[in-house]
């Protein structure tokens, strides 16, 4: 930045930090008379609320948690809709002791100190009996005394501390999901208990193999073992039998068919051998198999559950509450209503900084709207009176009124979400590698068992032939095969998570394991998504005055100027006038300062030097917008404003291209801007697409001429449908929350490097799965050969089974890697 001369530091707390969140305090917020400073009204309110309740310990606890600094967000809403009897009827039924209990989603949780703070509520708010926070899922369970306090009052208390409560979807669905999870845990625990006991009994039997054991003892141990195995297969293991029956009925290959076959063979052979009194039994292997396979399945289920729960949060882009204006004879009244209760023709009031809850017509003279959620456009859009506005767009600067045209499920945002849901459901499921392997696994074993019988019957008699065939069925049971994929996937997902790459499922890793097409969104993905001053020309005091003037405006250009030059005190502005579409003017220290477009300067007759004109022309070529500053009618300074490309974007694109990916830019922004950015990134001109609506983005990722897999990388709500429809959807850090719910992968670290990390990790995890499958097939082939030769007895089977699982586990934990290859010299 050319304006980085010596700053004019003042002693008016220029460097002070917010007492609540620790971020620097902007000059406009500095209050000289206060001993402590805050960065915004939200933080000030929360700090006051904490101190008045004697909960200052929050700060000490938070410091221990090393939480991310973030200003508090206080909405000041009334939350009256939570007192609606219909809502309470469904979500908070009264209990026997005159209390109610509700479960709500909670926003704003950052660290453990938040949990402590909220769970201390019953101590300071009368009527609140208990608050329990589930930080993993972002849920607050609140119990309160009916009549002593209303739920809306509790929600307002939460809001005053910077946490917002939202009503939940369908409480029955939540309850069902929880019951399923519980059933899985019970199943797994029971299987584990039975397996360990069966192993203990088996050790006695193994001992008997080596030393001579009384027949009576042996039969006793065998019956115990059989009883445990029957219990394991009939209770926790029943799920494999039902799955296998279903798979056979629908003629689809499924892992559970060979599993069920092996389980039934082992238990049946055990019963027969024990009843007859001769032969070996493999019951402990069956019990162990049930346990190990259930562990793998539970891990898969847990991931799916989390993914499902997050989809529910989707609707959060459109506010669930609207402020409806009601005309009464005494005047106007504003009440809060649920979004669904709005009807066409209603008038709603939208405060500055909040999102509009319905599609409609603007009643105010004009307004600047932030549509980046809906369209991805980086610049705010100006809407004139009577112009259309859409649900989910954020109002900047001044509060506005909107006449509702459509609300609820018919808004553009809601239809977009429907599109997302459909796209996600239509995506063709892949047949996972493990299922493809297991598809030929069973026939091979059955043929091998048949060959064993056919070979040994004439040579060793029917009894020996059958014994060897049963040993083969048991010892080749696909325990390692069943664990190979889930273990590798879990290890891969765990390693990725530690590296800031959150992957939601194993199939995602499988899809992204070979090179295809990467589709990049522009705003917020390859660029930082925030308007900033890129370069500036001119004396520092002029720029500082511009910042002082702009600190009165909420326009993004104003923010950028304040961020860049607000550290220096430019003086106090008076007579400030904002001229929509042109700029802003006002007086500072009796000098007339104007900030705005070239048109604004010309209209006011300002003198523009050649140097300034040349700089402005340069800015335009670079794709940035010049903003001019005039002091007393002379243009002294220019600032180039734009959305800078992320520092690591160019290098990542070139590395991806070198490893075989085709990189495409798909932007909702102006085509000229898009091709400029593509050029800067080294993306070919034919692969730069601009001006795409959300629907066109969706169609784009579904185009058949793109090499599969198509990996869509985006951040905004306008990318949602494309994220859901692409083979792999990747949401970048700081993206809209909804994009994180829809995407298969969320990048928690800044920039584009984590994208490459994910692709490298996917390939590495897939390699691990292949190695694991190969190892388990080898184990089974070896075990099968031993069984054919009659060398397998229950002891060998009992050792082979856990040993193969253990090998697969060790490989899974050691192998997958999300490390980027070391940067090579030629990358410069």
């Amino acid at each position, binding site marked *: 930045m050319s304006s980085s001369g010596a700053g004019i530091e003042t002693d008016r707390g220029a460097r002070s930090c917010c007492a609540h969140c620790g971020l620097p305090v902007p000059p406009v917020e500095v209050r000289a008379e206060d001993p402590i400073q805050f960065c915004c009204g939200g933080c000030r309110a929360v700090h006051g609320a904490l101190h008045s309740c004697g909960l200052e310990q929050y700060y000490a*606890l938070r410091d221990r948690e090393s939480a991310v600094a973030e200003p508090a967000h206080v909405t000041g809403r009334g939350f009256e809709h939570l007192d609606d009897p219909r809502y309470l009827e469904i979500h908070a039924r009264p209990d026997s002791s005159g209390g109610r209990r509700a479960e709500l989603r909670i926003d704003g949780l950052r660290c453990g100190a938040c949990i402590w703070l909220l769970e201390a509520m019953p101590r300071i708010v009368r009527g609140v009996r208990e608050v329990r926070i589930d930080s*993993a899922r972002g849920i607050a369970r609140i119990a309160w005394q009916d009549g002593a306090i209303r739920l809306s009052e509790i929600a307002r208390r939460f809001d005053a501390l910077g946490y917002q409560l939202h009503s939940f979807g369908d409480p029955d669905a939540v309850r069902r999901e929880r019951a399923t999870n519980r059933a899985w*845990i019970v199943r797994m625990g029971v299987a584990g208990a039975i397996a360990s006991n069966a192993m203990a009994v088996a050790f006695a039997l193994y001992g008997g193999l080596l030393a001579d054991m009384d027949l009576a003892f042996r039969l006793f141990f065998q019956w115990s073992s059989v009883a445990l195995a029957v219990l394991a297969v009939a209770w926790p293991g029943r799920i494999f039998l039902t799955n296998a029956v279903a798979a056979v009925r629908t003629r689809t290959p499924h892992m559970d068919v060979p599993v069920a076959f092996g389980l039934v063979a082992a238990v049946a052979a055990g019963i027969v051998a024990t009843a007859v009194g001769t032969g070996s039994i493999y019951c402990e292997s069956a019990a162990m198999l049930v346990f190990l396979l259930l562990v793998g399945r539970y891990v898969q289920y847990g991931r799916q559950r989390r993914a499902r729960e997050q989809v529910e949060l989707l609707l959060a882009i459109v506010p669930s509450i609207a402020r409806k204006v009601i005309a009464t004879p005494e005047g106007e009244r504003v009440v809060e209503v649920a979004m669904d209760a709005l009807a066409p023709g209603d008038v709603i009031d939208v405060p500055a900084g909040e999102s509009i809850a319905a599609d409609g017509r603007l009643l105010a003279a004009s307004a600047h709207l932030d549509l980046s959620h809906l369209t991805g456009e980086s610049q705010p859009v100006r809407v004139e009176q009577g112009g259309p506005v859409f649900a989910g767009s954020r109002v900047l600067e001044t509060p506005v009124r909107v006449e509702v045209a459509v609300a609820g499920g018919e808004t553009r945002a809601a239809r977009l979400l429907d599109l997302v849901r459909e796209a996600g459901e239509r995506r063709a499921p892949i047949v996972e590698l493990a299922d493809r392997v297991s598809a030929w696994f069973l026939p091979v074993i059955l043929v091998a068992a048949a060959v064993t019988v056919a070979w040994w019957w004439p040579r060793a008699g029917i009894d020996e032939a059958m014994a060897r065939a049963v040993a083969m069925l048991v010892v080749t049971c696909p325990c390692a095969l069943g664990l190979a994929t889930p273990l590798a996937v879990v290890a891969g997902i765990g390693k990725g998570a530690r590296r800031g790459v959150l992957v939601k499922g194993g199939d995602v890793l499988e899809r992204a394991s070979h090179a295809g097409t990467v589709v990049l969104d522009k705003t917020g993905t390859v660029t930082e998504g925030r308007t900033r001053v890129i370069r500036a020309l001119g004396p520092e005091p002029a720029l500082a005055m511009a910042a002082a003037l702009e600190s009165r405006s909420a326009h993004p250009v104003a923010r950028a100027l304040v961020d860049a030059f607000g550290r220096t005190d430019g003086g106090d502005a008076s007579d400030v006038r904002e001229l929509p579409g042109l700029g802003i003017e006002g007086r500072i220290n009796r000098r007339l300062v104007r900030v705005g477009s070239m048109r604004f300067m010309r209209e006011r007759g300002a003198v523009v030097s050649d140097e300034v004109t040349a700089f402005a022309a340069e800015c335009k070529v670079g794709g940035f917008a010049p903003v001019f500053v005039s002091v007393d009618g002379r243009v002294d300074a220019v600032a180039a404003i734009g959305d800078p490309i992320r520092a690591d974007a160019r290098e990542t694109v070139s590395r991806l291209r070198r490893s075989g990916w085709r990189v495409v830019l798909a932007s909702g922004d102006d085509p000229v801007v898009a091709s400029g950015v593509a050029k800067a990134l080294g993306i070919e001109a034919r692969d730069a697409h601009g001006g795409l609506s959300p629907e066109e983005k969706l169609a784009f990722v579904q185009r058949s001429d793109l090499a599969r897999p198509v990996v869509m990388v985006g951040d905004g709500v306008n990318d949602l449908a494309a994220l859901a429809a692409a083979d792999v959807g990747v949401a970048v850090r700081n993206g809209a929350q909804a994009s994180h719910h829809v995407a298969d992968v969320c990048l928690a670290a800044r920039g584009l490097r984590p994208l490459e990390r994910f692709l490298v990790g996917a390939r590495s995890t897939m390699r691990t799965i292949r190695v694991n499958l190969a190892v388990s097939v080898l184990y089974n082939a070896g075990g099968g050969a031993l069984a054919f030769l009659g060398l397998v007895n229950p002891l060998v089977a009992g050792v082979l089974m856990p040993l193969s699982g253990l090998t697969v586990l060790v490989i899974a934990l050691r192998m997958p890697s999300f490390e980027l290859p070391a940067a090579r010299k030629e990358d410069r």
Partner: protein
Amino acid sequence: MELVYVALPVALLVGGAALAAFIWAARDDQFEDLDTPPKRAIFDDLEARGQDSERDPLDSR
């Protein structure tokens, strides 16, 4: 050696009791949220110490 006829069922009974306790805990949703309770324990500990001791490590900021 005949002791085994008693010892094995007793062992299974004890194991069964532990299993029953586990199932009760699972049905009580004790495995539902595994992230929050560990943090809670730390806070209880800190709060107790904060009230007891004169020189509270947390007040040193």
